[in-house]
């Protein structure tokens, strides 16, 4: 009897706990404000979906944060940790993403984070902060329709300029950068179409066979870290023609065309075909399949890769003053018919990424101060350094004759070079101290009231005037005197600016998300296989496999959602421009 009773009891306990644990407790900790002592040195966990560095922020930026706020930033970067959304999911399941949160918001993520009690209501914290006063419209717009009501997130890239002005200042999202020295050695060949680029790349690879450190050069090198709905390395070639992704759709900047990516005559498959041909010619770095962003960045620094589509890769890593003086560096070449995609300014902020305070933090007050500071002109100059701002006044730049100019150190270190930083500024290497948050608080092309010029240093009059290195002069001579990539593209009427809007992709049903996840992996895997296919037949058969598989999985249902989103986005762009124009009147 007793035994039975005991075993029964055990059974009951087991079942009960199983059931009870299922209903996890609802209670969210009361937004405690800040019980951490104000003067205590703290380590802040920053959950940052944009960061490409994981660990404690070191170097000069680490020192600024320590001096100003007596804290250090421990950056948690899903991009580095890998596994897509895994880190977000596990951390949010635990109910604590971090103290400071920089996150994507689309597909209902922002609303869900609020609903799940992961974010702190900042209404009281920001009450008398400048950031709220200066950017009230943008912040309110971001935080409408939330339950419970409050201010939970501040959008990025807030701007005062027109939505039709490129937010990228001098370099659009993508442009066909080539190593100008190699392009010159090939005799500046004209390119009528994308395919014409291949023989040019081949010549470049032949006339520049070795990198600075003597390694074999390749025209193209890819990496897989950022692949999501599609392969980023291929999508970029579609962006050269004014398209950008929204789900499985490539939407043209002006809203005139929406393409589904698996269509055989679309730009995405076209880009895969281009890369496939390039690989057949031996132009693609075979390590593309295994390397990550960091390894690729080092290759760019070493001059091992001869073309680049992102200004923040090739040009940013290789165009140092020394290289430019030696007539070496990345410059955009013109391919007939291109019209690179560029993001317009976000009058109401770019709500696709936000900064927020975690609900479980003990340091809310101090974090609010930190946020307030990064949205101030000085904060923008420093935090925005990773995206082209100047950095610290006195170290990298100073005001001379009423104009902002680089110091000698700034010349050497900016934008992202391995130059030792003086001990009193934090020591270490400049490159290692660059703000790893990778978050743009304000639009980089907006005017810095402290210097009356844009934050973006490459737009400073003192910097534009300096574009007189042999590399610049040679490039300008060939391109009718344009000083920047955007000027150059505008002069050819070849720039597609997509008006900046506060449009966010709405939440979708989980059926669609599941299907999307399955289709994504088929598309990304098959894209890689197609590029490295043995021959045309294999390329075609993998393409067919991709099309058939996603179709069989139910791709059409996902596409319907994406097409609707693409159209809504196009509409919101028209509206944003109208709104701005009305306000300007």
């Amino acid at each position, binding site marked *: 009897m007793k035994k039975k009773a005991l075993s029964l009891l055990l059974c009951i306990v087991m079942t009960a706990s*199983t059931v009870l644990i299922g209903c996890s407790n609802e209670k969210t900790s009361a937004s405690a404000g800040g019980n951490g002592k104000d003067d205590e040195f703290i380590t802040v966990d920053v959950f940052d979906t944009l960061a490409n560095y994981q660990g404690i922020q070191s170097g000069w930026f680490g020192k600024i944060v320590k001096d100003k706020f007596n804290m250090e930033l421990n950056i948690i970067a899903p991009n580095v940790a890998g596994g*897509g959304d895994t880190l*977000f999911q596990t951390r949010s399941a635990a109910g604590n993403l971090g103290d400071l949160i920089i996150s994507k918001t689309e597909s209902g993520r922002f609303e869900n984070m609020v609903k799940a009690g992961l974010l702190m209501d900042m209404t009281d914290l920001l009450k008398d902060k400048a950031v709220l006063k200066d950017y009230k419209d943008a912040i309110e717009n971001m935080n409408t329709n939330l339950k419970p009501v409050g201010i939970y997130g501040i959008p990025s890239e807030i701007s005062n300029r027109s939505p039709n002005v490129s937010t990228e200042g001098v370099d659009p999202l993508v442009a066909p950068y080539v190593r100008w020295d190699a392009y010159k050695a090939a005799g500046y060949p004209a390119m009528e179409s994308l395919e014409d680029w291949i023989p040019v790349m081949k010549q470049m690879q032949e006339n520049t066979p070795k990198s600075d450190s003597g390694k074999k050069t390749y025209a193209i090198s890819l990496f897989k870290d950022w692949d999501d709905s599609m392969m980023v390395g291929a999508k970029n070639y579609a962006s050269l023609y004014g398209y950008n992704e929204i789900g499985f759709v490539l939407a043209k900047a002006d809203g005139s065309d929406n393409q589904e990516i698996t269509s055989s005559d679309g730009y995405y498959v076209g880009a895969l075909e281009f890369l496939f041909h390039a690989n057949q010619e031996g132009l693609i770095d075979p390590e593309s399949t*295994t390397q990550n962003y960091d390894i690729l960045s080092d290759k760019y620094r070493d001059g091992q890769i001869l073309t680049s589509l992102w200004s923040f890769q090739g040009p940013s890593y290789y165009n140092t003053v020394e290289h430019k003086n030696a007539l070496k560096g990345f410059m955009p070449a013109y391919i007939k018919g291109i019209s690179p995609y560029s993001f317009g300014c976000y009058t109401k902020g770019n709500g696709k990424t936000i900064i927020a305070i975690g609900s479980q933090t003990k340091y809310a007050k101090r974090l609010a101060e930190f946020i307030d500071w990064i949205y101030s002109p000085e904060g923008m100059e420093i935090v925005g350094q990773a995206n082209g701002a100047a950095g610290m006044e006195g170290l990298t730049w100073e005001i001379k004759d009423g104009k902002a100019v680089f110091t000698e150190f700034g010349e050497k270190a900016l934008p992202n070079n391995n130059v030792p930083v003086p001990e009193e500024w934090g020591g270490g290497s400049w490159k290692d101290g660059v703000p790893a948050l990778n978050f743009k608080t304000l639009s980089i092309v907006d005017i810095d009231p402290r210097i009356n010029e844009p934050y973006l240093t490459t737009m400073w009059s003192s910097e534009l005037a300096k574009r007189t290195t042999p590399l610049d002069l040679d490039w300008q001579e060939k391109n009718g005197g344009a000083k920047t990539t955007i000027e150059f593209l505008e002069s050819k009427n070849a720039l597609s600016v997509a008006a900046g809007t506060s449009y966010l992709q709405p939440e979708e049903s989980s059926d669609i998300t599941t299907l999307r996840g399955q289709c994504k*992996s088929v598309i990304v895997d098959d894209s890689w296989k197609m590029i490295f296919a043995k021959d045309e037949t294999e390329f075609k058969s993998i393409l067919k496999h991709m099309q058939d*598989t996603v179709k*069989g999985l*139910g791709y059409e249902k996902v596409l319907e959602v994406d097409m609707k989103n693409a159209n809504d986005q196009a509409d919101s762009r028209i509206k944003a421009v109208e709104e701005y124009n009305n306000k300007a009147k």
Partner: protein
Amino acid sequence: MKESVSGKASKRTLQSRRLFYCILPFIILSFLFSYFPLHGWIYAFYDYKPPLKLSQCDFVGWKWFETLFANKTQVAQIFQVMKNTLAMSLLGMLTSVFPIGFAIFLNEIKCKWFKSLVQTLTALPNFISWVLVYSVAFSLFTDGGLVNTLLQNMGLITTPIKFLDSDAHIYSWMTLWNVWKGLGWGAILYLAAIAGIDSELYEAARVDGANRFCLMKEITLPSLMPTFFVLLMMSVANFLNNGMDQYFVFQNSFNKEHIQVLDLYVYNVGMTGSSLSLATAISMLKSIISLILLTIVNILSKKTRGESII
């Protein structure tokens, strides 16, 4: 029970209670690690969206189980995954004879220090994690790795061979890595069993004129068979559980189709594809199939050997 029980019975209760307390820690442990995690199965019946709590999500019943068989492509995908799982498990079973051979031959080595050296060196890989194994594989077999560079320098090949990012012979490759990692470790059990064989058997056989190979074939091998069968049966029960770490570290866009075993598929769907509910449903099905397999093996074992293994 009545009050008027004899002293003997109460003594027995006392003793059984004491025994119960002895095993209580183990009951608690097995509850914590084997039964308690099962409450996670509840996620398979909800439309779970990660930042939200389960109580904020909708209850959807059997929807995710139906999704698994929603269309032909889906079924084909699961079929491919099952094929990979079974193929690799089967290859694993086939190669489970290698440790026996290895143990028998190792046992014949008379030089003691050499024997223990070989044994240590072959058992060592078992303790290296798959992540490290992959990094070794990576530096050996990438395009710029040791093997390719060597072959190119010797003029045997002109373009690097894609060892890692190719779909060819992926089952064999994975099995080879497995054998390399597990051979020495697997042999330890057999070496212990060999040590337990009655030496009189060998002496008698020698008197009868048996040579070394005869001894191995007629005495050592048959004596190892019971151990082998127990291990084999246990591996049948683990048919679907071929682990995911090995395949996870080796997977890439190029070999995914054939390397994706069930555990890895669950991970890819759930963690990478952000469908935790669906992944839970798949792993639930897996547990059920494993249970059925184990029961079948157990019945077979009862029928053929007269004793059950559980």
